[in-house]
């Protein structure tokens, strides 16, 4: 049997969840034995080259590109996992939810105390730039998500145990200490 294929991505996240994947320490060697990585910032494969078994999604959807990548993951992965608070509930980027986008942009590019050098008062609006969404969406409000691993970041043991359970087909044990929201 060929190895299960894993893909990962970071949408509106801080890469902390990816750091936590690496935080499984020497078990990363076991992981490389157990699975094959496809599209992921870890191996820098930019596009899917084959159908994947497991997709790990870090971060929620704050712009059109995030939605595009997430839908691409749904299309190419049998199982999608929301990894971390941002993917599950929007996280810190979602602090802007409830505030109109125009107001956010004006604060960031015109009125904020740290703004300097934007004398013409330009708000970024180039076709090349992804469109900002009206709010930051949790991943499961955009596509179907199969599993959720909470935490900021999710504990390395939780990620490891979840992947191991999926790959081996064993039941996932969830000790009290590993499921945390911070």
């Amino acid at each position, binding site marked *: 049997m060929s190895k299960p294929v894993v893909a990962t991505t970071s949408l509106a996240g801080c890469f902390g969840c990816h750091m936590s994947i690496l935080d499984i320490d020497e078990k990363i060697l076991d992981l490389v034995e157990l699975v094959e990585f496809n599209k992921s910032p870890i191996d820098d494969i930019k596009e899917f080259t084959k159908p994947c078994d497991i997709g790990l999604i870090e971060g929620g959807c704050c712009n059109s590109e995030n939605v595009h990548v997430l839908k691409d993951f749904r299309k190419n992965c049998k199982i999608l996992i*929301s990894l971390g*608070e941002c993917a*599950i*509930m*929007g*996280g*810190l980027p*979602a*602090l802007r*939810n*409830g*505030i109109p986008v125009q107001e956010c942009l004006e604060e960031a590019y015109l009125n904020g105390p740290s703004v300097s050098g934007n004398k013409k008062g330009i708000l970024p609006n180039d076709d090349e730039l992804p469109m900002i969404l009206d*709010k930051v969406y*949790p991943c*499961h*409000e955009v596509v179907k*998500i199969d*599993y*959720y*691993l*909470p935490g*900021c970041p999710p504990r390395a043991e939780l990620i490891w145990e979840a992947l191991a359970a999926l790959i081996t087909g064993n039941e996932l044990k*969830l000790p*009290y*200490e590993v*499921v*945390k*929201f*911070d």
Partner: protein
Amino acid sequence: MSEKIKFTIDGKECYAEPGQNVLDAAADNGVYIPSLCHVRGLIPAGSCRICNVKIAGRNMTACTTPVEEGMEIENDTAELQDMRKAIVEMLFVEGNHFCPACEKSGNCELQALAYRFQMMVPRFPYEFPLRKPDSTAPKLWIERNRCIKCKRCVRSIKTADGKNIFAFRKRGHEVEIQIDHELAAQMTDEEAKKAADICPVGSILYKEKGFSEPIGTRKFDKNAIGSDIEKVV
């Protein structure tokens, strides 16, 4: 001393003082009934509904129901636990609970219940309401985004002459917590800390405290909420 009342919870024989409510009586018998709004000693409000138990086929809030002789109470059933979990999930989507950025994280009773019920994601869509915090009180920070309207502060925090420092204003789903600015300005450090501690979530915070406890040492990092009650007896 008066006669004790005999009752059962999930078939376990328990004893209560006359007039005691089901929630406190259960705790005295080593049975944990989850709750957010109840604090022993305060007049029960029955506002959070998490302590719902089944008595004679009816759902009743354990905090507002006095124990009666021979009462048969269902507590730890799949149906009740799922309903309690659903209420916790509703509270998570109804406000803005950004746990990673909250000073109460690790000591928060709402979060602790979510841990106990192993909430991985709420089953309801997030509302992301916009609520204005109030930082005008000198010692306290009122963060309405996290308020679960349990009324613990309204019920328990008073001045020496019995005036309320906290109150609800507006109605329905717009109801929000308000602090009396004049009275809040006179609060001592102890009173302000008591107000912050009585809040089950991070809605009333003591100013200039910040993230004072490291992760791993906080109240619910290693011990589930209610485990202290279950250990007794």
